[in-house]
């Protein structure tokens, strides 16, 4: 295995608040790495830094050895690092299929003007994206509802659509921020399967999640944040028996980290 992504001394300050403090870890190719920690620990901020949605205050992120922090988000996305959002973020006014087709934009070879005059390249893109979108929708069990307007979907489907959008970009690394939030037990179980099969497609996954039983099941490794600092890193078993992790979660119900 090789190191795909390196987070080195990453720091983010919001005024006086240090949301992410000197965090370092690395991500192996094809692994599922989860980032956990109490609310406000800096998990979402960490993801935004990796995906260039925020400027760093210090440290850097390297992708295949190349520095990628502080680029524009669409550039980082073009390099293959794509983030989905904690808040379910989709294009509400479009149908499920339109959402997924437009998310193929990254793969498109035609220029904006090419789209306008419908150049051969644009027409080819359009066809190919439709085909690929249908495949992704089938793969994520969204085929049946592909013509529904996204704003009418229930939570579970919204999350799946979010993942479908992420997948459509053909990412190398997919950052999923709380993909299982708001799902019931059954939906979560299916979503976990889904995430696994995404990994089997060759995608490396970073995950922020609160559902501890899901995290423990799905992750190859786990990074624990508390007050912006990394307090532990290891396999699910190592994390479950780690003293400082248990301490960080004290005061919260024990069940919530599955202990």
């Amino acid at each position, binding site marked *: 295995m090789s190191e795909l992504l390196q987070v080195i001394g990453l720091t983010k300050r919001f005024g006086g608040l240090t949301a992410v403090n000197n965090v370092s870890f690395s991500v192996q190719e094809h692994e599922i790495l989860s980032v956990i920690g109490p609310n406000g620990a800096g998990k979402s901020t960490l993801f935004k830094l990796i995906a260039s*949605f925020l400027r760093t205050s210090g440290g850097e992120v390297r992708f295949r050895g190349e520095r990628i922090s502080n680029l524009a988000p669409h550039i980082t996305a073009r390099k293959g690092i794509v983030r989905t959002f904690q808040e379910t*973020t989709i294009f509400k*006014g*479009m149908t499920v299929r339109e959402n997924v087709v437009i998310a193929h934009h990254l793969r498109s070879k035609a220029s904006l003007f090419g789209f306008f005059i419908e150049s051969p390249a644009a027409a080819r893109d359009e066809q190919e994206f439709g085909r690929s979108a249908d495949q992704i929708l089938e793969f994520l069990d969204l085929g049946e509802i592909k013509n529904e307007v996204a704003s009418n979907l229930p939570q579970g489907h919204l999350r799946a659509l979010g993942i479908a959008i992420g997948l459509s970009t053909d990412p190398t690394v997919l950052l999923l921020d709380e993909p299982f939030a708001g799902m019931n037990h059954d939906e979560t179980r299916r979503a976990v399967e889904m995430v696994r099969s995404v990994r089997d497609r060759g995608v490396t996954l970073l995950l922020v999640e609160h559902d501890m039983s899901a995290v423990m099941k799905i992750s190859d490794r786990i990074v624990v944040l508390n007050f912006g600092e990394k307090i532990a890193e290891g396999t699910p078993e190592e994390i479950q028996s780690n003293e400082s992790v248990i301490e960080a979660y004290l005061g919260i119900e024990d069940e919530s980290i599955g202990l």
Partner: protein
Amino acid sequence: MTRTTKIVGVGAVLAILLVGIPALINISGRWDLYYTLTSVALLSIASGGVWLTFYIGRINIGQGAYALMGGYVSAILVVKYGVSFWLTLPIAGLFCGAVSVLIGIPILRLRGVYFAMITLVLTEVARLSMLALPITNGAKGITNIPLPGAVEVFGLTLIPDFATLSNAKPAFYYLSIVLMILCFAGLYRLVNSRLGKLCRSLQQNEELASSIGVNIAYLRVVAYVISSFLGGIGGATFAAISQSVYPSSFTIADSINFMLNCFLGGLGYVFGPMLGTLVLYFGWDLLFQTGEFQLLIFSTVLIALILALPNGLLSLRFSKAGKESVGRE
């Protein structure tokens, strides 16, 4: 809609605009309608531009600035440099497009009310600039602009000199209608291509759009440039028709009207601004008899209409067809 019904529909609309209406005017002798309809066509071009900025999720109350600028660019080139009007028309559009790049890059980062306020100020800045610049002749404006000259290719007269026509009004009518058709055909094409989808992705969620790799800053500027180009074209033609342009030719009130035209017609429909302009323009004229109550009645009806049909007049027609509308967020 099948392809044939579409072609028949487009053909019918073209026939009405280019043959039917002029015939009716000739029969009825209502020559004043030429001027009115010419104005509607030109205003709807400018409104079409505003509509496009709505389509990427920006409330644009600054189109008057570009219409004014377009009018002055054409007028100055024609009067001071003797350039043919037909050449100044695209130049005016391109000039406005270029200026809008400089203005757009910083202000398009703003959203919602903030963008709207800045664009509103822009109209006023444009008016004051035209008052102050040495080349624009201050408050007296530029008057006695010659009518558009002939266009000849190898001795063949494509467009006659407007000054030689016994009545230039029909000629201006045809010019404006053709420009309007080109403008809305272009917008229709844009909106129904992938480019339109990208614009909608901006309107609905800029953050997500950028995370799927859309260069949102670039796309915003592209849309704004097209919008301003259309404003410039509309303004330049207006100056040619009235053969004059003043700092007050386009004011904040016009900018607001451009926006209202879009609201009224429907932000989700590409032909919305055309219908909106027509209804608003004639509605205002019809209320002329009510004198001092004109504005009061006009505003009340407008507010009621927008409340009753939040997706615009065209939603009446499309809601049944199941075509989903685009929210304004």
